[in-house]
Structures are given as structure tokens and as C-alpha cells.
């Protein structure tokens, strides 16, 4: 029995270090004293007044704890234990207790202004849904729920972070996702012992088998239609509060070659786009390195006309080909960083200064050659055929640049073989990273480098485990 409500409130406030946004009310009704405590910055004050305080204060008759519970006009009411009070207040609930009972009520009336779902800047579409996840996990769950009017969409929640106690929700389709994968995800998330997580990126190292690897091993997207498609394939989604980025596991490299637009357009055209994307990756990875290798080591392999053109344009350049390409690449990277962080109007000006003035003047001054500018420009544009992997490819581009300059073609091909072998070593949640190419899985290649019609995709991917292989008859 809580005999002194005021004292209880005072103790609770002290436990919460008397933060200024803690609000309390005490209502004295004959023999009954009702105490309310909540965060005014994080709760809906209007609902508190109209649905909680007003019905109780204006009630004519004898009140008890059970009566109070009936009077409250809110949906999310639950009885909590004494040790759960602070957690509930922090999550936006109004905690109510009376002096005649030891029971405690928590009414969730959390309110926080969030933005409406809008098209995410990271994955714009030409056709197809434009909705994107927001920073509010409840909105995000709603966006998923409205795509599955089925009880098979299972959502499990828990919190992570000793200080932040951030809500995590695991979503999967019952009867489709592999139970072992779900359990493994749960186990790994529950084992996280960190003071706080502020973005889903914080969770990634805890979920993957090679946390020090350069390569991305978990899928992430801001689009609910992509998450829905992945859930239908048997994957598990991880939603974290305060971030629009939803993680999906298991992840294979092929997912980066696939784009939302592929599924909302003709499949033959989509296949062509995937082929172009693959070429883009190779150009971005090996373009500058190969150019240097050809110039330094294998000029005799070049057809004579190209050789003359390159020789003509490079003979006056004071730098070695490697320094020249490295300089242009670094310049591009600096411009990219600057334009990314500056406001858009300044970003545009930087691009003009960088691309037109610096590039053009550099060539005219004889410091850099036109072929080198073209090679770097192509490689840097090609980077963004797969924007999700642009960070990894940028690093590798510089590595291959160095290899090309020091050992030539033999080193470049060796480097490529090394990367393929390394990627073959990666496996997360039982999914080989390079599946369905190695190991080769014929049925999964229907949605690989080429895409067949949705009608012909009869089965779910075999690249990773799932409970039900058949999608359609």
C-alpha cells in the first residue's frame, strides 16, 4: 500500500535526478489520493487532461483503484510493478498510483512529433511505392502491417542499450523464415551489452560473423516495400527506434545488384540494367588501375591508334601516370565530400568550380591529361551504379590503383581473385556471400544477373535457409 503519494512522487523524481520535464499531479478526493507522474516533453498533454485527469477528477462517487482503471479513456493501459515505474515514465507513459492500493497503472500516451513517411533520398524510384520508413518505430511497424493483412507477420520486441533502452523489433513471416535464423538473430541481439544505440548501424557488428570486414554483410533499406519483399523471401527484418534504416538478414552480395526499380519494370529491361550495373562495378573497381597498368607495363597490348592518342596527350604531363590518376581521384573524392556536406546551393557551386574550372584548367595547364580525367570520371560515375556499395568500391578502387601502378595486369587479376576468394569465405546466418553464383544455385539465378518474369519465380531463394521453398504453383 502506498500510504504517502506525495512522498512517493518526490522519491521517484529524485531517482530521476529531478529533470525539469518531469511533471506530477496529486488529486485529493475524500479519502483517496491519486498521484500522476509523467514526462511533459514526451506525453500528449491534451490526452492526459481529457482522457485521464478529467474523468477521474470530475467523477461523483466513491473511487477505488479498479474504478480509476475503468474511467481512463485510453487504449494502452497496463498494471506494472514498482520497479517498472521509471522505465514506463521514460517511454512516455503516465504512471498512476493511489494511496489505498499497492497496484500501479501505466497509461501509454507517448507523443513525439515525427515526420510523415516520404520518399527516402537513398532509394528514389521511377515507378512503384514512394513510401519510406521514418524515425518512429510505431509508424514503421504500421507501414509493414499494412502490407501483410495476415497473422503470419510476427513481430517481437525488446530493448537494447543500458542507457538508451532503445526498442528493437524483429519481424519475420511465420512458416516462411527459418526458425534457426530467427533464434540466432534474437540471441545475438539479446547478447548486446552496450550503453546505447543511436542507429541500426550500431547493431551490424554484433550480427555479422566478420565484423572487421570491409564488405557489407547485412541488408539495409529505408523502404517498406523492399522489406516486405525480403520478408516474403524468408528473411528477418530488424527495426530499431529512432532510425528509418531497417536491417535484413541473411544478406548476399546479389541483393546489391538488385534494385527496387527492377521489379516494377519489364524483366528484360531489368536484366539489361543488371548487366550494366555489373559492368559499372568492374569499371569502377578496375578502370583507373587498368589504365595505369596499360600505360606503365602493357603499352604493347594497346592498339597503335590508342597508344598514339595516349602518348600524345601524356607526353607533356610532369607527373607519373600513377600520381596523375591519384591526384585526380583524390580531387574528385574531396569535391564529393564537400558537395555532400555543404548546403545544396553551395554544393552546386563547388561542383562547377571542381569539375569545370579545376578540370579544364588542369588539362589546359598541362598538369593532367584528358584521358586520365575521362578514366577517373567514368570510374567515379560507375561507382554509383550500386550506390550501397560505393564506400567499399571506393576503397578497393584506390587499392587496385596502387596494384595497377606497381605490378600491372597480373596483380589486378590476382587482386580480383583474392577478393572473390575472400568473399567466398564470408558466410552469415548460413548464407554464402556470393550465392547463387558460387555456390551456383540455378533456381536463384532467375533473379540473379538476369531476372525472369515474377510468374516464373516459383520458389524462394535457396541461397539461405527458409521454412517453405514454394512461392507459387
Amino acid at each position, binding site marked *: 500500500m502506498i500510504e504517502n503519494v506525495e512522498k512517493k512522487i518526490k522519491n521517484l523524481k529524485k531517482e530521476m535526478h529531478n529533470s525539469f520535464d518531469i511533471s506530477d499531479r496529486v488529486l485529493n478526493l475524500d479519502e483517496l489520493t491519486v498521484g500522476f507522474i509523467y514526462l511533459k516533453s514526451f506525453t500528449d498533454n491534451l490526452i492526459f487532461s481529457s482522457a485521464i485527469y478529467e474523468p477521474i477528477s470530475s467523477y461523483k462517487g466513491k473511487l477505488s483503484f479498479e474504478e480509476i482503471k475503468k474511467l481512463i479513456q485510453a487504449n494502452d493501459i497496463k498494471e506494472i510493478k514498482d520497479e517498472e515505474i521509471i522505465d514506463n515514465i521514460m517511454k512516455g507513459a503516465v504512471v498512476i498510483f493511489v494511496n489505498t492500493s499497492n497496484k500501479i497503472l501505466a497509461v501509454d500516451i507517448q507523443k513525439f512529433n515525427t515526420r510523415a513517411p516520404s520518399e527516402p533520398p537513398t532509394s528514389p524510384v521511377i515507378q512503384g511505392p514512394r513510401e519510406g520508413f521514418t524515425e518512429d518505430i510505431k509508424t514503421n511497424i504500421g507501414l509493414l502491417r499494412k502490407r501483410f493483412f495476415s497473422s503470419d507477420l510476427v513481430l517481437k520486441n525488446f530493448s537494447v542499450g543500458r542507457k538508451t533502452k532503445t526498442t528493437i523489433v524483429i519481424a519475420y513471416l511465420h512458416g516462411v523464415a527459418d526458425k534457426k535464423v530467427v533464434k540466432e538473430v534474437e540471441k545475438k541481439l539479446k547478447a548486446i551489452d552496450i550503453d546505447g544505440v543511436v542507429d541500426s548501424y550500431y547493431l551490424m557488428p554484433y550480427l555479422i560473423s566478420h565484423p572487421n570486414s570491409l564488405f557489407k554483410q547485412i541488408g539495409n533499406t529505408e523502404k517498406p516495400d523492399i522489406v516486405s519483399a525480403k520478408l516474403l523471401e524468408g528473411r528477418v527484418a530488424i527495426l530499431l527506434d529512432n532510425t528509418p534504416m531497417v536491417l535484413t538478414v541473411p544478406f548476399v552480395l546479389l541483393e546489391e545488384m538488385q534494385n527496387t526499380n527492377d521489379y516494377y519494370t519489364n524483366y528484360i529491361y531489368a536484366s539489361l540494367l543488371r548487366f550494366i550495373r555489373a559492368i559499372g562495378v568492374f569499371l569502377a573497381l578496375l578502370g583507373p588501375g587498368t589504365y595505369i597498368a596499360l600505360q606503365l607495363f602493357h603499352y604493347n597490348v594497346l592498339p597503335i591508334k590508342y597508344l598514339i592518342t595516349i602518348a600524345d596527350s601524356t607526353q607533356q604531363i610532369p607527373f607519373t601516370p600513377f600520381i596523375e590518376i591519384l591526384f585526380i581521384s583524390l580531387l574528385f573524392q574531396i569535391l564529393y565530400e564537400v558537395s555532400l556536406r555543404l548546403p545544396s546551393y553551395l554544393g552546386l557551386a563547388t561542383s562547377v568550380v571542381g569539375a569545370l574550372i579545376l578540370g579544364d584548367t588542369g588539362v589546359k595547364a598541362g598538369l593532367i591529361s584528358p584521358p586520365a580525367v575521362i578514366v577517373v570520371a567514368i570510374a567515379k560515375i560507375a561507382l554509383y551504379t550500386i550506390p550501397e556499395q560505393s564506400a567499399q568500391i571506393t576503397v578497393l578502387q584506390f587499392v587496385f590503383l596502387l596494384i595497377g601502378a606497381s*605490378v600491372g595486369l597480373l596483380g589486378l587479376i590476382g587482386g580480383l581473385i583474392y577478393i572473390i576468394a575472400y568473399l567466398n569465405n564470408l558466410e552469415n546466418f548460413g548464407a554464402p556471400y556470393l550465392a547463387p553464383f558460387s555456390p551456383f544455385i540455378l533456381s536463384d539465378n532467375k533473379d540473379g544477373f538476369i531476372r525472369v518474369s515474377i510468374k516464373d519465380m516459383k520458389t524462394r531463394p535457396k541461397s539461405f535457409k527458409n521454412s517453405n521453398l514454394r512461392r507459387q504453383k
Partner: protein
Amino acid sequence: MRDKTMNIWQAGICLFIIIFANKILLLPSLLYRLANIEGMFAYLFSFMLEIGLLTLFIFLKRKYSHISFSQLIREKLGVITLKIFYILFCLYFFCKLILIYNVTYIFFKDLIYKNSDSFLFIICLLPIMNYLAYSSPRVVGRTAMALFPIILVVLIFCTVTSLISVHDIPLFFQSSPLKVFLATIKHISSFGDAIFLFVFMDKIEYKKGDGKKLYFFAGLAIIFVLLIAVAFYFSYTYTSFMHPYAIFETMGNIKDYGGLGRIDAVAVILVIILTYFQMSIYLKSFTISFKEIFPKLSLNYALISFDFLFLIVVYLLVRNLERTILYAESILPYFSLISFVLVPITSIVFLALKRRR
């Protein structure tokens, strides 16, 4: 991770690479030098032996599906025989690696790396070979599988363009059967590559009927080798011995084909990919054999020992075409006894012992 196995498709692709790789550069020219156009029969005879070796492997794998070749030797012939066998295997794989390195080094130096030092090739090849040899057989198999479509497309392109360049039919039967026989013996060391399967025996997943897949890949490799040899002999006819790098030379015949430009560069890329894989598979076989000789030593010791020996031998022996040919024709044929005599006889002994029981 290191103990994981490769599936039969991956084993087949490795077999394809290893059978095909070292027979399309110097060999056609060398066989022509010894036996004229009938050098092609030397190919046929040697391939028959190769298929025989593969048949033996499939036979053994069917009988003893889950145990290694070393276990078989240990159980049937004792530990000392096992050590002797695997020392010979180690030597064989090491010598093969030296030969492949020599041939490809000369090829690369002549064609794409003018005036480059051997050190450049070593710092390219050794790290990748070591990494693949350190990885599990599954990683090696999967990597081969990932690159196989590229290898196949490039190979088909090379073969078709090589055959297009054919413009003459040479005269047959210019050489005696004895010359063909001698040519076969002298270059027998370029064959017998299926021996690596015996070393990998317990690392290959095998189900009933999988033998056909291995035959398919071996057959495919043999067909491609023969097609390139035919294209080479029919393109250069009586001057074949003057053109050492068969696949590159046949494509070089039509280097400015239409708007495609220097298509012979494609052959260089193919040779580079094949060289990496072939050497990695042999190094992996070397390390497995090394582990059988010194079971208590880790894989790192096998790799470090190899690297040291390799660097010393490469520094002392190689970097000369004549010396390489001499080495291949005089010393290496003896090592082929391991492929074509030692392993078959042992296998027959196992099978005879099993039948008696």
C-alpha cells in the same frame, strides 16, 4: 573452416582448369618440334593415361567414399610407405609448380612485361597462392566456380577465333611412331594432373553417379586443348615450332579482327586466371601432402617451407626458356612415374586386397 569440403561440380571445375591450363602455351610447339604434326597423337596418348588416372580415382572414391588416400595407404601399406608416398607427392607438386611458374613467367615477360624482374611475378603470385592454399577446399572450389563462367566464355571466344584463323591443312604422317612415343614420354610431365584428386580425396563430396560429372569436365578440357592444338598446328603448320605460345599466337593471327581491336589480349587474361588457379591448387595439394608427412606441424609451416624453397629454386633455376625446356624434358618426366605408375599400382593393390577380404 579449413576442413570444409568441395562439391563435385567444384572439383570438376578444378579438374577442368588443371587439365587445360598447362597444355596450351609451350606444349603444342614443343611437341611439334619432336614429332611434327603427329605431336597431336602424343596429346591423345597422354590424355588416355589421364582418363585412366581419373577412372582409378572414381573407382577408389566409390569404394572408399569417406576416407582419404593417406588413410588408405596407412591402413593397407603402413606408415613408412605413407611417408614415402607423400614425400614423392610433395616433390611432384613442387616440381610442377616450378615448371608452371617458369613457363608462365617466360610468357608474361615476353609478351606483356617487357624487362620486368622475376620478383614482380613472385609478389603477385605468391600471396594469392598462399591465401587460396590456406583457405578451405570449399573456398578454392567456390572461387573456381565463380570464375568458371568467365573462363569458359573467354575460352570459347579464344577457341572460336583460333579456329577462324586456320587457313591451311598440314601434311600428316611426316613423323615415325617412335618419335611420337618419345615426344609423349618427354612431355608426360605436363599430364597426370588428375593426381591432385587423390590428395583431395576426402575433401570432395561424392554421391553415386558423380563420376560422370568429373568425366564431363575432364572431357571438356581435353576437347578444348585439342581444338586449340589443331587451330595452332593448322595455322602455323611447318613453322609451329617457331611459335612458342600456342593460344596467344593463334589469336595473334587475327589480332585486328573487325572493330574488336587486339583480341589476343583476351588470351593473356585467360592465361593469367588459369595460372593463378593451377598454381593455387598445386600449392594446396603440396600443403595437404606436407601435413601428411609432418602431421604435428600447422599449415603455416607448410606454406612457409614452400615459400622459402620456391624462392630459392626460382632464383637459381629459372627465367630462361631453354633451361626450362631442358628441365621439363629431362628431369620432370621421372616425376610423372608418380602419376602414371605409383598411384595406379597402389590403387590396384588396395582393390585387390579388398577383393581378397
